[in-house]
Each structure stands twice: as structure tokens, then as C-alpha cells.
């Protein structure tokens, strides 16, 4: 994740260090997934050029691009980030002014696109390069401030070319939103609202959204579903996930739902449910390290030195937010190649693979093998991290079963 404020004015140079210019603007496709398509660069002789985004190699102290880069013009359906989005007024459905776009959040993992806008006060301080100061000043009083993020899914791209950022949470538009974003958004409302939204989505998409919700929302929603509806929703959810959800329900409700599932799914779920008699609780270790998303690499390394001396194993560092919820992860290699001043949120992987306390041992171990990770974090229903199950457990499990 990157903020545009950190990119603007940055040096753009080729891989062999020849200066091309300074970044002035970005061009993106104004649609559901706003992919970045061009870098607008001001050359040293004050010319403005648009370089195709595929020339980008990486961003460190400067923006490194390929020696053979191509230029392109603004195409239809493309907009400028600075000219059309940044600093623009955000208005709600009724035309009331809400706030301005203070910064733009850019996703740099899995392709480059705009993931949303920052509308918080912190973003204004970031432009003034006073954000760290503000955070520290607040921390002195024990207050933590965080940026206020508005997902791209909440914005109507059509209105952008008219210079207005309109918030449209109209229901028919929700389907075009990515299910993760929608789940994120829904988690900020209440269960009744979530249900209302899910009702208007098609089964497959609503199952996707459900699987991205956190477990206590999932549980609340399924509790309010009729057994028939619950069964229908569950057949689109991954079996592992489905078991987690079922286990969070009262056993009576669970018994009503299971017979209604389609056969293949039923077999799988019953098998997995059996395993739940050996949940992973007893495997959990508390030898893990968490850092705040705003901590720098330097602070993280200091923390490792200080706190992990007695650890028998350390591979991943987990990142938590102000509410102590697990929001990201990175490994030691990813940490070491970064600058000491870089905050960890910039390079962490946001999509953390987790297991719940109720997850059966076998599923947890399957997950580790499937994703080839040496340790999996265990979280509770509030996404707070409880502990870790490590590769040791896999080894034990295999030894037991050979």
C-alpha cells in the first residue's frame, strides 16, 4: 500500500540511473478496478510526458523504470489522479458536502491500482510531512490516530470526470464491487444492514461476501437465516470456512442445517466437523511477535532483538492495528531488504491466511501445507491474534499418522 503523497514529486529514473524527470501525476482507468496506466512525468526541461505504467520496475528512493519505456496519450475512460480525483469535493447521495479527497491510496501488490482515498486529517499532515509528528504528539496523550480510508467501491467513477466525487452506496451498484471491499464496508454497519444487502445480491456473490466477513458477523447472519437459506448460502462457501461458521452456531441450528446441504458438500463438512473434536487450541504457541502498522523497519528490528531472544522459532512478524486486530504479515527477508525508515504497512502482505480457535487440527495443517507457510496465526472472533501454530505441529501430526 502506498499513498500518492509519498510518490508525488519523486524522482523517476531508468534502471541504470539516468534521470527521466519527476512524477507529477498518474493516469488511471475510471472503472470498477481503477488500474494505473501511465505515469505523468515532468522532465528536467519542463516538458510533460506520460509513460506507460508497464515500464515500471520498482519504487525505492526513486521510481525506477525500464530503459525502453513507451509514451502514451490519455485514452477514453482514463482520468488524471491529481487533476480529477485528488483534492476534489466528496459529496453524499443527497448532495451534501462531506469532505475532500486528502490523499489517494494505491495498491502495489497484485497489480497497481487505486484501492481508495484517504479522507482523514492525518492525510493533510502527511502532505505537510508532519504526519509522524502528529502521531507522536497524539501518542504522548495515549491517543492513536489513524487514517480514514474510503474504499474505491464507495465512489462512483462516472462522476469523477465532472470533477465531483460522489458517494453512491446505491444497492444495485454493490454487485460490481469486489467482495472483499464490500465485506470491509459492511463490517462497518450492523448485522441488519448486512442482511439487507445480502438479500439483493445473487447467491454466489453473497457467499463470497459472507466468507470475507469476520466470524462474529458470519455467525450472527447465519443465526438469523432460516435453515434452508443457511444451507443454500453455505454451499458456496469453502468447506473449511463453512465448518468454522457451523461451529459458531448453536448445535441445534447446526443439526437443522447440515441435512439440507447438497450431498457432496455434506460429506465433506461432516468429515471436517468430526475433526473439530480435536481443535487446535492445545497446539497454540505464544512465541510470536506483533508490531504496529505504523512502526518502522528500524523499530521492528529493535523489537526483534529485544523480545525474541528466547524464541525457538521466528519467521514471520505480524502486524496489528490500533484495535490489535491482525492486519498484515511479512517475513524476515521482506523486512531486511527495506529501508530502516519505512513503515511496515508499506510492504506487509495484507491478505493474511489465518485459522480460528475452532478450526480443526487437520484443516489447519492442510492450510499450512497448501500455502507452504511455516506458521499460521490463530485469531479470535474479533480478528485479534491469539497465537500461532507452527511447522512443529505439522511434523508432529505427520509423525503421529505415519
Amino acid at each position, binding site marked *: 500500500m502506498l499513498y500518492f503523497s509519498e510518490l508525488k514529486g519523486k524522482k523517476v529514473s531508468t534502471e541504470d540511473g539516468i534521470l527521466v524527470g519527476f512524477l507529477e501525476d498518474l493516469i488511471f482507468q475510471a472503472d470498477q478496478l481503477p488500474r494505473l496506466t501511465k505515469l505523468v512525468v515532468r522532465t528536467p526541461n519542463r516538458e510533460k510526458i506520460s509513460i506507460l505504467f508497464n515500464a515500471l520496475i520498482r519504487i525505492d528512493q526513486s521510481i525506477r523504470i525500464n530503459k525502453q519505456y513507451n509514451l502514451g496519450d490519455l485514452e477514453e475512460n482514463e482520468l488524471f489522479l491529481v487533476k480529477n480525483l485528488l483534492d476534489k469535493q466528496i459529496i453524499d447521495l443527497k448532495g451534501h*458536502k462531506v469532505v475532500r479527497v486528502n490523499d489517494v491510496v494505491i495498491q502495489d501488490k497484485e497489480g497497481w491500482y487505486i484501492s481508495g482515498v484517504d479522507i482523514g486529517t492525518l492525510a*493533510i499532515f502527511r*502532505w505537510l510531512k508532519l504526519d509522524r509528528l502528529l502521531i507522536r504528539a497524539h501518542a504522548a496523550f495515549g491517543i492513536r490516530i489513524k487514517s480514514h480510508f474510503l474504499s474505491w467501491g464507495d465512489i462512483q467513477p462516472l462522476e469523477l470526470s465532472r470533477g465531483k466525487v460522489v458517494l453512491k452506496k446505491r444497492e444495485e451498484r454493490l454487485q460490481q464491487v469486489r467482495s472483499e471491499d464490500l465485506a470491509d464496508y459492511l463490517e462497518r454497519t450492523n448485522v441488519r444492514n448486512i442482511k439487507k444487502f445480502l438479500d439483493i445480491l445473487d447467491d454466489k456473490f453473497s457467499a463470497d461476501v459472507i466468507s470475507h466477513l469476520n466470524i462474529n458477523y458470519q455467525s450472527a447472519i447465519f443465526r438469523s437465516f432460516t435453515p434452508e437459506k443457511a444451507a443454500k448460502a453455505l454451499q458456496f462457501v469453502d468447506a473449511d470456512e463453512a465448518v468454522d461458521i457451523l461451529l459458531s452456531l448453536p448445535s441445534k441450528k447446526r443439526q437443522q442445517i447440515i441435512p439440507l446441504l447438497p450431498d457432496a458438500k455434506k460429506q465433506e463438512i461432516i468429515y471436517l466437523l468430526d475433526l473439530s473434536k480435536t481443535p487446535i487450541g492445545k497446539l497454540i504457541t505464544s512465541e510470536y511477535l506483533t508490531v504496529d502498522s505504523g512502526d518502522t523497519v528500524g523499530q521492528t528490528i529493535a523489537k526483534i532483538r529485544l523480545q525474541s531472544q528466547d524464541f525457538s522459532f521466528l519467521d514471520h512478524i505480524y502486524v496489528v492495528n490500533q484495535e490489535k486486530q491482525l492486519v498484515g504479515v511479512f517475513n524476515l527477508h521482506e523486512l531486511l531488504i527495506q529501508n530502516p525508515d519505512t513503515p511496515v504497512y508499506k510492504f506487509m502482505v495484507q491478505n493474511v491466511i489465518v485459522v480460528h480457535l475452532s478450526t480443526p487440527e487437520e484443516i489447519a495443517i492442510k492450510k499450512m501445507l497448501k500455502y507452504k507457510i511455516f506458521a499460521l496465526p490463530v485469531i479470535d472472533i474479533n480478528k485479534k491474534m491469539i497465537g500461532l501454530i507452527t511447522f512443529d505441529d505439522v511434523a508432529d501430526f505427520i509423525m503421529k499418522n505415519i
Partner: protein
Amino acid sequence: MAANGNGKNPLSQIKRRLLIFLAVFGPATITAMADNDGAGVATYSLAGARFGYSILFILLVVTLLLAITQEMGVRIATVTGKGLGDLIRERYGVVVAVVVFLGLAVANLGTIIADFAAIKTTAHLFNLPAMPLILIVILISYAFVFRGSYKVNQRLFLVSSLFYFCYVVSAIKARPDWGLAIKSLILPVNIKLSKEFIFGAIAVLGTTITPWGQFFVHSYIIDKRLTADKLKYEQLETFFGAFLTDFFSFFMIVATAATLFVNKIQLVAGEQAALAIKPLAGNLAGVLFGLGILNAGFMGVVIVSLSTAYAFSEFFGNEGSLDAPFEKGKTFYILFLSQLVIAALIVTIPSISLFQIVFFTQSLNGVLLPFMFFFLLKITNDRTLMGKHTNQSWYNYFATISSFIIIIASVFTIISSFLK
């Protein structure tokens, strides 16, 4: 009705146009009148007492400059539908927006303090209890701004504007030399081009043409939701407003020139004018002059504070309109009120030097003004924003010269204040 009365019935057409004008009427006049706030009246009184009728010639120049600069603001607001804060933020980004806003907010707070001080001094002179009076001012502005709509507030300001007629009566009572006064207005008579006079002239200019005035006329037009098709009427109103403002300024200067200057009485502070002219022009003149200052102080306090609140919501995008319900416009309303409260508290501190605050405020306004005009000229010449309403070449010439006069004047003030 005869909406299609294209010349067939000239009377009904004039009537129709008059009605539109009256519907549009408000923002430009109110802004211009507010430029004669408590601090403004004090400056005019001081200038009149020190330089007599000769300073009137400056008034003509000031009126022209005020009309031209306000017209640019009016044009931008009606054509783009955006406030000056909106445009600065969208064109120049967060950093410029924050810096300009902070400058404006501090300068405006200084102006509000000066206006409260004018109210306080006048109250003392007339043996009125100052603190309760300030409290009443805050309560009235709270009631109108928080509860009232745009319409209600416009009415309040227009009624308040009527009180400026006090100065006309005061001036008549002072039995001035009308012939000399009019002559001094049109021709440079008896001007002694001393350093003092130049400062006096710049002070008059600086109290009339202010950064907050530029911001406020924008915001107020937008809050009234005037659109580009009413531009002609609004331009007419701007010129009328500039004329009206300095029409009253004329009488302020005449009232003090005919009494204090003629009798060589020096004023320590402009606010004391009301008391000083009493023995010379009679009780009624003095009381009306004092009432005028109280009213001007009230108008200044409310409008300057509103201008900060408007500017904040333009720069940072929260809802900011007199028509917005409290829930939606919370930041706007709270910002408005807190300025009044802070300013009132500062005024009550006895050890604080009001002179220094006023001096600092004027310097800060002087620093801000050149930037304001840079923005105004940039925007009024931007074809993508203004379309066919960009500055026409002859007008641009005029506007640029006016802007430069103001810029030079403010730079002059700042530099010389540091040389002292």
C-alpha cells in the same frame, strides 16, 4: 406574466429586471458594507481627524479598487459555482490550502478582536457595560447563524447596513464645508505628501480591501446559489455596494474632518472619535457616531467569523452553509462560534496590547493580499474555468494595475513597519 416582454412593454421589462435585481441583491453589498467594520470606522475616523478633507481623494481610488477587485470575486463565484477556497485547494493542493487557511484564520481572528475592542471602547465611552454587550453580540449572532437560514441572515445584515445612516446624520450635524469636501473627493486638494499621509492612505486601503472580504463575497454568493445567468445583475450590485460603502465612509471622514481636524484635536485611537466630536457637533452626532461603531463592530464580528468558517469548509470539504442543518454543518457552526468566544476572551484580558494585535493583523492581511490577487488574476484569466467570462483585455489591464497597486501598498506597509 409577460416574461417574453422583449421590448414590447418597456415598463414591465424594467419592472421584471428590477425584481431580478432585488432578488439577486445582497451578497456584494453586505460584503462591501462589512468592509466598514468597527476597525474600519476607527481607521476612517483617525484619517479624517489627522488629514482632514484631503484624505477624501484616496476614498475615490479605494472605491474603484474595491469595485474592481470584488467584481472579479463575484464573477468567479457565479460562473464556477465554487468558492475561493475550493478553487485554491483544487488548483494548488493541500499544502497551499493549509498555509492560506491558517493565515486567513489568524488574520480574521485579529480582525474580530479589533471589532470587539471597538465595541468595548465605545461601550466604555457611553458608560454602557462592555462585557454584557459583547455577550449579547455573541448571543445574537449565535441565534441568527445557528438557527436562521441564509435568507434570515441576509436580512439581518441588510438591516444592520441601514444603521450606517447614523454617519450621514453625524456629518450633517458637524456642519462641514460641503463644497470643500466634494472638491477634495474629486480633486487632490491640500494633499501634503508626507510619509504619514501615505501610511494613512494605505491604512484606509487596507481596512477596506481585505483577504476575508475576497473570501466572503465568494462564499456568500455560493450560499445564495446565484448562477451565471444572473452575473450582470450581480456585477451591477457589486459596483453599487462599493459605491454605498464609500458613500458612508465619506460621511465618517467628513464628520471627523469637520470637527477634530478643523479644531486640531488629535485622536489616540479611532474609537474615541464618537466622544471627541460630541462637544463640537453636539450630543446627537456623538451618540449616533457611537451607535454606528457598535453596529459596525457587530457586523464585522459576524461576517469575518463567518468568512473563516466558510473558507474552512471550502478548503477541507465539509458542509458549510447557513442553510445546512446543524447536524450536517457542525464544523462550520462550531468554528464560527468558537472564534467569537476566543476573540471575546482575549479582549477581556486587560494586560493584552490591542494595538499590537491590530498591527499584527494588518501586517498579516498585507502579506495575504498579494497572494489573494495572484489567485484572483490567475483564476479570472483561466479559460477552462471561466469560459467566456475571463477578464477582457482592457479590463484585465485595469484589474492587474489595481492588484499591483494593492500589492505594492501592502508590501510597502510591511517593509516600512520592519524598518521602524
